[in-house]
C-alpha cells in the first residue's frame, strides 16, 4: 500500500465506503478522476477532499467526463476513471460509456445511487442505472453491501482492462458509501470466475498463417485499434513484421499511428473515406491479414463484395468478433501483439517476390486520391485539407510530442487523411459510435495526462458546440489545449450526403446563428484567433502553436468541400468516388444503399 495513503487513512478499521473506494482506486494506480459532484456522491467527494493522492478534474458535463477519461486511457494505456452522481449524472454519462464500448476503451465509471432502501421508489435523482447501462458497458455492478465494495472495485478494473478492454460501471448507493466497510487484502472476496480470453493464438493457426504468407503474391495487413490497445510493443512488433515481410499495411481509423503513416509501406486508411490504393489493395489482395480490427461496415462497404478473392486471417482477442461479419479462413484468437510476435518468430524470410504487387500499388498511389486544389492567392478561400496539412507541418516543426483529438464528421476524416501519426496513442477519435462532441473533452483528458505535450482538437464548428462548455474546464485547470475549428458553417458530412444522395436538399444542416468563436474563447478566459483566407492561415497556426495557454482558432474554410475519396453506401471498394468530377456516379447509388447509414 502506498505510504501516502496509509497516512491519510491511519485507522483502517474506521473506513467508510467512500474511503474504501478511494483506497482501492489508489491501489489500482489511479491518479486522476474526471467527475462532477451531486447528492448521491457527496460522501465520495468528502473523502476526496480529505486526501491528496488522487487528483479530481471537474468537468462541466458528465458526458465530457467519460470522453476525457477515454482520451486519458487511450493516450496512456491506463484505465480512465469517472465519478458521477445518480440519476441525470449517470444518464448523461451513457453516451460516453457506449463510445468507450464501441472503441474498446478501458474506463471505470462510478455512479452514485440513492440509498438502498429507496431503490425502486422513484426517489429524487433515482434512475435504474445498472438497467440503463447494461448494454452500454462491458459489465456493471450495483453495490448492495459494504463488504462487496472493495472486491467489486478490484474486479471492475480487471474487467475494464482485461481481454478486449471496455467500460465498466459501479453503481454505489449513498448508504453504502456512508457506512463503515471492510478493506480486505487484494485477492480476497473475488466475485466472478472471470472470463480469461486466451492470449496466445493456436500454434496450428500461426503455422497456417505463415504458410499463407509464404505463398501470397498480393498480401495486405489490415490493422486496427486492437494494436493500440495491445500496447506500444505491439506497434513495434507490427513495424518489424512489415519490414521483414515487405507486405503493405493499411489501417482503420482507430488503428492510425500503430504503423507510421509516413512509411512507404503504409497505404493510408481503408474504407469509406480511405485512399484509392488502400481500398483497391483490399479489393485485389490474395491474402488479407486483419490484426486487431473488426470488419466494421465503414471498412467493408458491401460485405458480399469485400475483398472477394483473398484468403482471410483474423487476429483478435475477442472470439465474438471472429466470423461476425466476414467469414475468415484462419482465426488467430489471442492478444494481437503476442500474435504478431509469434508470426515474426515463425517467419523465415522466404516469401514471394512482391515486385509486381508493389508496382500495382504504386500505380494506384500515383493517382493521389487525397489530392486537392488549393488556390494560393493570399485572399483565396482556405481548403480544409490544406488547413490540416499546414497544421500538421507546423506542429511537426515545433518538435513537440503531439496528440490530436477530433469531433465527428468531415473534419475528422480530413484529419485522419492529412495529419500524420508516427507513434501509437497520439490519435484520439470516436470511431465506432461517431460521437459529435467527443474531441474537446478528449483534448482535456489527453492534456491532463500529458501536461507538456501539444494537444490539438481538430474540430468542426457544429460538433464542437456539443461539448463547448468544456472550455470552462480548460480555463479552470489552465490546460493549453488548442481547439482548431474547420468552420464551414455546415454539418459538413450531413451536407455532403444530402448533396450526393438527397438531391442537394440541405435539410437542417446549415449552422445558423453560430457564435463568434473568438469572443467565445475570450469569454472562457482563453485566446481566440481567426483565419478567413489563405494569407492568414500560417500566421494563425504559428501564433496558436506558440501560445502557452488555451486557444480557439476559427479557421473559415470552403463551405462546399466534400470529403473524398468516398465509397458510397452499399458499394464495393472498387467503385469509389474520387472527387467532384465523379459525383455524377452518385446517381447510381441504389435504394438499398440509401437505406444504409
Amino acid at each position, binding site marked *: 500500500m502506498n505510504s501516502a495513503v496509509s497516512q491519510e487513512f491511519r485507522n483502517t478499521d474506521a473506513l467508510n465506503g467512500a474511503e474504501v473506494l478511494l483506497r482501492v482506486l489508489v491501489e489500482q494506480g489511479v491518479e486522476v478522476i474526471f467527475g462532477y459532484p451531486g447528492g448521491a456522491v457527496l460522501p465520495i467527494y468528502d473523502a476526496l477532499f480529505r486526501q491528496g493522492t488522487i487528483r479530481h478534474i471537474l468537468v462541466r458535463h458528465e458526458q465530457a467526463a467519460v470522453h476525457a477519461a477515454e482520451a486519458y486511457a487511450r493516450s496512456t494505456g491506463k484505465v480512465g476513471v469517472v465519478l458521477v452522481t445518480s440519476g441525470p449524472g449517470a444518464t448523461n454519462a451513457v453516451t460516453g460509456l457506449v463510445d468507450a464500448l464501441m472503441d474498446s476503451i478501458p474506463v471505470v465509471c462510478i455512479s452514485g445511487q440513492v440509498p438502498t432502501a429507496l431503490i425502486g421508489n422513484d426517489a429524487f435523482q433515482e434512475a435504474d442505472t445498472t438497467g440503463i447501462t*447494461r448494454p452500454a458497458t462491458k459489465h456493471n455492478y450495483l453495490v448492495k453491501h459494504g463488504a462487496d465494495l472493495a472486491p467489486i472495485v478490484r474486479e471492475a478494473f480487471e474487467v475494464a482492462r482485461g481481454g478486449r478492454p471496455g467500460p465498466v460501471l459501479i453503481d454505489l448507493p449513498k448508504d453504502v458509501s456512508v457506512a463503515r466497510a471492510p478493506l480486505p487484502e487484494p485477492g480476497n472476496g473475488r466475485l466472478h470466475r472471470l472470463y480469461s480470453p486466451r492470449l496466445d493464438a493456436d500454434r496450428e493457426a500461426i503455422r497456417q498463417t505463415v504458410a499463407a504468407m509464404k505463398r501470397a503474391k498480393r498480401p495486405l495487413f489490415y490493422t486496427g485499434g486492437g494494436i493500440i490497445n495491445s500496447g506500444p510493443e505491439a506497434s513495434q512488433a507490427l513495424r518489424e513484421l512489415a519490414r521483414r515481410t515487405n507486405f503493405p499495411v493499411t489501417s482503420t481509423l482507430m488503428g492510425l499511428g500503430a504503423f507510421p503513416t509516413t512509411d512507404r509501406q503504409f497505404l493510408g486508411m481503408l474504407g469509406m473515406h480511405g485512399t484509392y490504393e488502400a481500398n483497391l489493395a483490399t479489393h485485389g489482395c490474395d491474402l488479407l491479414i486483419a490484426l486487431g480490427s473488426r470488419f466494421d461496415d465503414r471498412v467493408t462497404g458491401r460485405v458480399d463484395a469485400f475483398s472477394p478473392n483473398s484468403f482471410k486471417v483474423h487476429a483478435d482477442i475477442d472470439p465474438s468478433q471472429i466470423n461476425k461479419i466476414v467469414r475468415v479462413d484462419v482465426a488467430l484468437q489471442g492478444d494481437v501483439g503476442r500474435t504478431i510476435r509469434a508470426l515474426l518468430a515463425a517467419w523465415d524470410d522466404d516469401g514471394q517476390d512482391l515486385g509486381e504487387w508493389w508496382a500495382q500499388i504504386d500505380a494506384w498511389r500515383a493517382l493521389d486520391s487525397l489530392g486537392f486544389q488549393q488556390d494560393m492567392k493570399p485572399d483565396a478561400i482556405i481548403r480544409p485539407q490544406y488547413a490540416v496539412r499546414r497544421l500538421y507541418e507546423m506542429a511537426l516543426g515545433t518538435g513537440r510530442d503531439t496528440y490530436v483529438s477530433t469531433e465527428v464528421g468531415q473534419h475528422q476524416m480530413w484529419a485522419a487523411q492529412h495529419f500524420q501519426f508516427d507513434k501509437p496513442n497520439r490519435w484520439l477519435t470516436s470511431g465506432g459510435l461517431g460521437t459529435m462532441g467527443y474531441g474537446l473533452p478528449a483534448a482535456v483528458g489527453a492534456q491532463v495526462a500529458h501536461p507538456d505535450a501539444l494537444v490539438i482538437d481538430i474540430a468542426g464548428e457544429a460538433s464542437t458546440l456539443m461539448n463547448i462548455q468544456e472550455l470552462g474546464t480548460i480555463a479552470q485547470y489552465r490546460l493549453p489545449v488548442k481547439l482548431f475549428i474547420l468552420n464551414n458553417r455546415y454539418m459538413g458530412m450531413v451536407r455532403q450526403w444530402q448533396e450526393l444522395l438527397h438531391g442537394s436538399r440541405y435539410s437542417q444542416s446549415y449552422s445558423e446563428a453560430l457564435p463568434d468563436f473568438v469572443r467565445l474563447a475570450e469569454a472562457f478566459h482563453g485566446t481566440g484567433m481567426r483565419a478567413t483566407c489563405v494569407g492568414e492561415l500560417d500566421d494563425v497556426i504559428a501564433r496558436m502553436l506558440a501560445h502557452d495557454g488555451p486557444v480557439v482558432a476559427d479557421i473559415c474554410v470552403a463551405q462546399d468541400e466534400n470529403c473524398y475519396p468516398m465509397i458510397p453506401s452499399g458499394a464495393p471498394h472498387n467503385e469509389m468516388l474520387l472527387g467532384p468530377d465523379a459525383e455524377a456516379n452518385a446517381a447510381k447509388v441504389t435504394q438499398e444503399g440509401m437505406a444504409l447509414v
Partner: protein
Amino acid sequence: MSNVIQTAVIAVLIENEAGALGRVVGLFSGRGYNIESLTVSVVDPSEKISRITIVTSGTPMVIAQIKAQLARIIPVHGVTDLTASGPYVAREMALVKVISTGDARTEGMRIADAFRARIVDTTAGSFVFEMTGAPEKIDAFVDLMRPLGLAEVSRTGVAAIARGLETFHSNQESF
C-alpha cells in the same frame, strides 16, 4: 458454412445473481437474435449456479456469434451447444386446460391417454392435463385438443441435456 437457418439448443451456466438473466435476454433483443424458448432455474444452490436453456435459430454464423457473445457475459461460466455436440434429450412440460362435456370430453380423455398425458385437475366440466415430452409432441397434443374445448395452455419451454456419458463440462465450448 451454409446460409440455412437452423435451430440450436444452447445451455448456459450462469451465476445466480441479480440481473444475470437480464444480461442474457438483453443480448438477444439488442442484437436481434431469436428466442424460441428460454428456461432458467437454479441447478446448484450451494454454488449459486443457474442453468439457462435457450432454443434459438439462425444461420451457422449467427449461432456461432450467439455462443461467443454469451460466453463474453461476465457471470456466464460456460456455454454448450447441445445441437452441435451430439445426441441430447429435450423435454418440455405443458399444462393444458380443456373445457368440454359429452363426446368431446370423452374424446379428449382418450387422446390424452394415447399421449400419456396425466390428469392433474378435474371438474365436471373441465380437465387440466399435464404432459411432458418433446415440443413437437406437445404441439400435436394441443392441436388435437383445439376442437375438443381447449381453453388454456401453459408451457415451460425446453429443458435439455446430453445423452450418455457426455456432460455440460465435457461439451463446453472454449472461447
